[in-house]
C-alpha cells in the first residue's frame, strides 16, 4: 500500500478497508510496519486516542478523590496522597505529550500535510516510521512506570527537582521516575525525528506553483511547530540527561547545598547546584511545547472558518507572519513560569514584557478569525462549530494569560487552580476542540465516510458546555486559594483548612461537570464507530474546500503527475451573491469566465 498513498478511493486510503484488508494480506506488514505516511498518521491517531482515553479516566479519578476523599477505589483501597500525585503526573504527561503533541502535529501532520503541499510522500518515509515506533515505545515505558516497585512517578509533568533528583525522596522517586525520564527522552528523540522529516518535506517537496505564500496556514503552523520541536526537545534532552546524572552519578546540577530530604541532610558528593537551573531548561522547552500543541489548531481554525464562511482568510499574509512570530516569541518567554521561583526581579520584568508581547500576535489571530466570519453566512457544520468553539476557548483562556504574566499577581496565583483553569481552557480544551474540528473535517479523507452531523452537533454543544462548566469555576476556586497538586482539601486543621473547605461546593460542581464533559465524548465515540461501521460514503470534496488535500483525483490526474497550484487557498469567485470555490488546483485558463476572482496570479 505504499505505492500510491493518495488513492482515496482505493484501499490505500481508507480506514474501513484497512480493516477489511487485514483479513487477507499480511496485516502486520501492511499496517504496522509500514512507511506509508497515511498509515503512520493513522497509527498516531490511534495512539493518541488510547492515551486520551486513559488520561480522561485518570482525571475523573482525580476529581472523584478531590471531592469525596474518603471514598475507596474498587480494587485499590484508599487513595493515598502519592496515588493522587501519580494520577496528576500520568494524566498530565499523557495528555500533553501523547495527545496534544502527537495527534495534531504528527497524526494529522502525516495524514494531511503531504497532500496539502502536493507531495506524494514525506521526505524520509523510513525515519517517519521509526519515529512513530520510538514514540510508541515511549508510551509503553510511561505506562509501565506505574507498575514498578516503589510506585508511579509523582512529580507532575514538570518533574521539579530536588525531589525528582533524589531517588530516596519518597514514593515513586525511584524506578518510577527513572522510567518517566526514559519515556520523555524517547519521546523527545521521536518527535525531533518526525519534525525534521516534516520540515524537509515542506521545504523540498512542494508541488509546482505551491509557493510559500500559497501554503495553507495549517502547513505554516506545522512547520513552525516543527522548528520549535527541534529547538526545544534538544534542550529538554540535555536537561533530562543532567537529571539522570544527578540521580545516578552523584552529580549535583540541580541539588542545592544543605538539601534536606525526608529529614536527612544529603551529604554525598558536592552540592553546588540549583533547582532553578532545571526550571530554566525545562521551561525553555516547556513553553514552546505548549505552542507546539496549539499552533496546528490555530492554523486549522483559520482554514476552516474561511472554508465554511466562503471567505478568504482575513489578512492571510499577516496570519503567516503571526504564526512565525508566535513561534519566535514563544522561545523568549519561559521565565513566566518562574516568577516565584527565586528569579531575579529584573529578569521577571523582562519575561513579563516578552510574555505580554506574545499576546499581540495572538490577538491578531483572534481578530482575523472574527473578521473572516464577520457578517458572512457560514454553513454551521460540526467542523465549523468546533472551530468557533476553539476561538471562544482561546479567548477565554487567553484573557487569564496576561493576568498571570504580571509577576505581582502571579505571586498569589502561581500554583493555584487559577493556572489550572488558564491552561486547561487555552491549551487542553482549545487543543482538543482543534482536534475534533480536524476529525470532523478530514474524516472523509481518513475513512471515505462523513461523520454524522446530528450527533456531531450534540457532541459539540455538550463539549462546549462541559468545558466551560468544568474549567471556568476553577478560576474561582483558584482565587479562593485552592492550590494545585494537593491531594486533599478537607480535614486540614487550621484557617487554611476553613478556606479550602469553602471551595468544596464549587468543587463538587466541577466534578459533576467533568463527568458530563467526559460523558459527552461517548457520543463522539459512538459516532465514530457507527460511521466506520455503516456511515454514508462521502463525495470527493464534500465541503467544497479549496486546499489540495481535497483534489478529487490526485493519483489519477494526468497519469499520476502531481497537481499544479495556481492560487492561495480559500479563494472564491462571487457571482450574483453566490460564492464559488476556486480550488488551488484549478487552472485559471479552464475557468468559464474569470470575472471578479480574488485569486492572486503571477506571483511566484
Amino acid at each position: 500500500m505504499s505505492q500510491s498513498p493518495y488513492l482515496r478511493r482505493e484501499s490505500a486510503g481508507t480506514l474501513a478497508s484497512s480493516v477489511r484488508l487485514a483479513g487477507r494480506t499480511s496485516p502486520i506488514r501492511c499496517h504496522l510496519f509500514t512507511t506509508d505516511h497515511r498509515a503512520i498518521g493513522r497509527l498516531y491517531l490511534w495512539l493518541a486516542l488510547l492515551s486520551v482515553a486513559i488520561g480522561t479516566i485518570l482525571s475523573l479519578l482525580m476529581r472523584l478523590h478531590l471531592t469525596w476523599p474518603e471514598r475507596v477505589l474498587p480494587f485499590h483501597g484508599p487513595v493515598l496522597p502519592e496515588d493522587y500525585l501519580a494520577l496528576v503526573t500520568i494524566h498530565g504527561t499523557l495528555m500533553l505529550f501523547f495527545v496534544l503533541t502527537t495527534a495534531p502535529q504528527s497524526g494529522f501532520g502525516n495524514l494531511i500535510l503531504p497532500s496539502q503541499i502536493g507531495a506524494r510522500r514525506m521526505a524520509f518515509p523510513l525515519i517517519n516510521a521509526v519515529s512513530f515506533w520510538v514514540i510508541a515505545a515511549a508510551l509503553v515505558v510511561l505506562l509501565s512506570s506505574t507498575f514498578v516497585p516503589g510506585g508511579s512517578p509523582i512529580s507532575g509533568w514538570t518533574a521539579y527537582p530536588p525531589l525528582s533528583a533524589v531517588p530516596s525522596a519518597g514514593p515513586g522517586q525511584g524506578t518510577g521516575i527513572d522510567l518517566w525520564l526514559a519515556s520523555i527522552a524517547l519521546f523527545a528523540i521521536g518527535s525531533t525525528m518526525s519534525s525534521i522529516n516534516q520540515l524537509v518535506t515542506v521545504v523540498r517537496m512542494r508541488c509546482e506553483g505551491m509557493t510559500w505564500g500559497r501554503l495553507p496556514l495549517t502547513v505554516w503552523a506545522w512547520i513552525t511547530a516543527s522548528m520549535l520541536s527541534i529547538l526545544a526537545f534538544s534542550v529538554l534532552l540535555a536537561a533530562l540527561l543532567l537529571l539522570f546524572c544527578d540521580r545516578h552519578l552523584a552529580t549535583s546540577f540541580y541539588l542545592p547545598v544543605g538539601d534536606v530530604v525526608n529529614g536527612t541532610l544529603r551529604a554525598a558528593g558536592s552540592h553546588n547546584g540549583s533547582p532553578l537551573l532545571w526550571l530554566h531548561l525545562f521551561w525553555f522547552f516547556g513553553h514552546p511545547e505548549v505552542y507546539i500543541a496549539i499552533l496546528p489548531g490555530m492554523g486549522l481554525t483559520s482554514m476552516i472558518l474561511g472554508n465554511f464562511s466562503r471567505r478568504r482568510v482575513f489578512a492571510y499574509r499577516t496570519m503567516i507572519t503571526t504564526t512565525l512570530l508566535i513561534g519566535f516569541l514563544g522561545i523568549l518567554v519561559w521565565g513566566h513560569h518562574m516568577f516565584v521561583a527565586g528569579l531575579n526581579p529584573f529578569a521577571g520584568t523582562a519575561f513579563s514584557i516578552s510574555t505580554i508581547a506574545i499576546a499581540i500576535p495572538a490577538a491578531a489571530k483572534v481578530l482575523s478569525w472574527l473578521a473572516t466570519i464577520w457578517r458572512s453566512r457560514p454553513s454551521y457544520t460540526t467542523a465549523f462549530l468546533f472551530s468557533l468553539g476553539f476561538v471562544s476557548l482561546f479567548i477565554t483562556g487567553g484573557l487569564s494569560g496576561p493576568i498571570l504574566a504580571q509577576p505581582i499577581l502571579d505571586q498569589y496565583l502561581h500554583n493555584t487552580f487559577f493556572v489550572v483553569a488558564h491552561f486547561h481552557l487555552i491549551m487542553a480544551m482549545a487543543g482538543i476542540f482543534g482536534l475534533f474540528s480536524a476529525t470532523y473535517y478530514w474524516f472523509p479523507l481518513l475513512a471515505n465516510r462523513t461523520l454524522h452531523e446530528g450527533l456531531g452537533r450534540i457532541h459539540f454543544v455538550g463539549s462546549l458546555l462541559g468545558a466551560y462548566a468544568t474549567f471556568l469555576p476553577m478560576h474561582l476556586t483558584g482565587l479562593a486559594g485552592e492550590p494545585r497538586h494537593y491531594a486533599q482539601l478537607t480535614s486540614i486543621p487550621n484557617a487554611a483548612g476553613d478556606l479550602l473547605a469553602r471551595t468544596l461546593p464549587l468543587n463538587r460542581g466541577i466534578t459533576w461537570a467533568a463527568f458530563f464533559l467526559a460523558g459527552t465524548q461517548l457520543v463522539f465515540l459512538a459516532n465514530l464507530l457507527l460511521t466506520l461501521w455503516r456511515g454514508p460514503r462521502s463525495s470527493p470534496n464534500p465541503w467544497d474546500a479549496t486546499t489540495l488535500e481535497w483534489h478529487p483525483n490526485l493519483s489519477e490526474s494526468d497519469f499520476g503527475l502531481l497537481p499544479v497550484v495556481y492560487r492561495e487557498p480559500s479563494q472564491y469567485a462571487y457571482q450574483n451573491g453566490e460564492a464559488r470555490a476556486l480550488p488551488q488546483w484549478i487552472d485559471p485558463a479552464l475557468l468559464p469566465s474569470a470575472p471578479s476572482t480574488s485569486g492572486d496570479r503571477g506571483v511566484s
Partner: protein
Amino acid sequence: MPATYTPSKPDLDKSRLHDNDNGAGRRPPTDKRTGGGGEGDNWQSRPQGQRGPRERLGRYRMGLFFALAGDLMFFIAIVSVFFVARTTGHFDAYNRYINEWLPTAIPPVLWLNTAVLLLSSVTMELARRRMFHEPDVMEEWFGLGRPISRRSAPWVAATLCLGLLFLAGQALAWKQLAMQRVFFASNPSSHFFYLITYTHAIHLFLGIGGLMLALWGLYASRQLETRQILVDCAAWYWHSMGVFWVFLFLLLAYFQ
C-alpha cells in the same frame, strides 16, 4: 496487432513518480559549476516529478542539517549549564561564600586528539570531494567501472581509522584522569569534563557508524547517487562533530 508499444498507465506513472526517481540514468550531481540556467542539472526550475538526482542529495543534506541544528541546541544547553555552574556558589554555615569549582587539568593528550580529529576532517573532505569529481562521475555514468568508489573509499577508511584513534585518545585521557583520581563525581568541573567528552564521544560513535555505513555503501551500492548521499552526509556530520569538538575543547581548556 500493431507493433507499437503503448505505455500503460502504471508504466507512465512509474517513470514520472519522483518516488521512483532514484537518479539512475540521469547524470548524477558533480562538482562542476557552470552557474547558468540551461545546465542539464538545473532541477530547481522543473516541476517536482521531473527533478533530477541532485534533489535527493539536497533532501538528505537538509535533513541532516536540521538534525545538527537540534544537536547544536543540545550542546548549547550543556555549555550554558557549564557557565552557570562555574559561577555558582553558596554560603556555608559560617556565612562564607563557597564556590566548589576546581578546574580540571586537561590531559595533554587532548591536544593530540584534537589534531587527529581535525586531520580526519581533512581526509573526510577529500573523500567527499572525490564523490563529486566530474571526470570520475562521468566515467562511471558511462559505465566505465567504478572509479568513484575506488578513489573515495581509502579516504573514508582513513577517516574511520583517525576517528577510532581519536576515541582511543579520549579513552586514554579518561584513564589518565582516573589515575589522578579525578572522576565524574569529583567536582563540578569534572562533571562537565566527563559530560562533555562522553556526549561528544557518543556522537562520534554514531559518526563512526555512519562512516562504516558509507564504506559499506561504497562497495555494495550500485547507484552512484546513493553512495554520494552516504558519503556526503557522513562527511557533513563528521565535520560538524569536529567543529563542535573544537569549541568544546577550547571551553574546557581555557574557560574553566
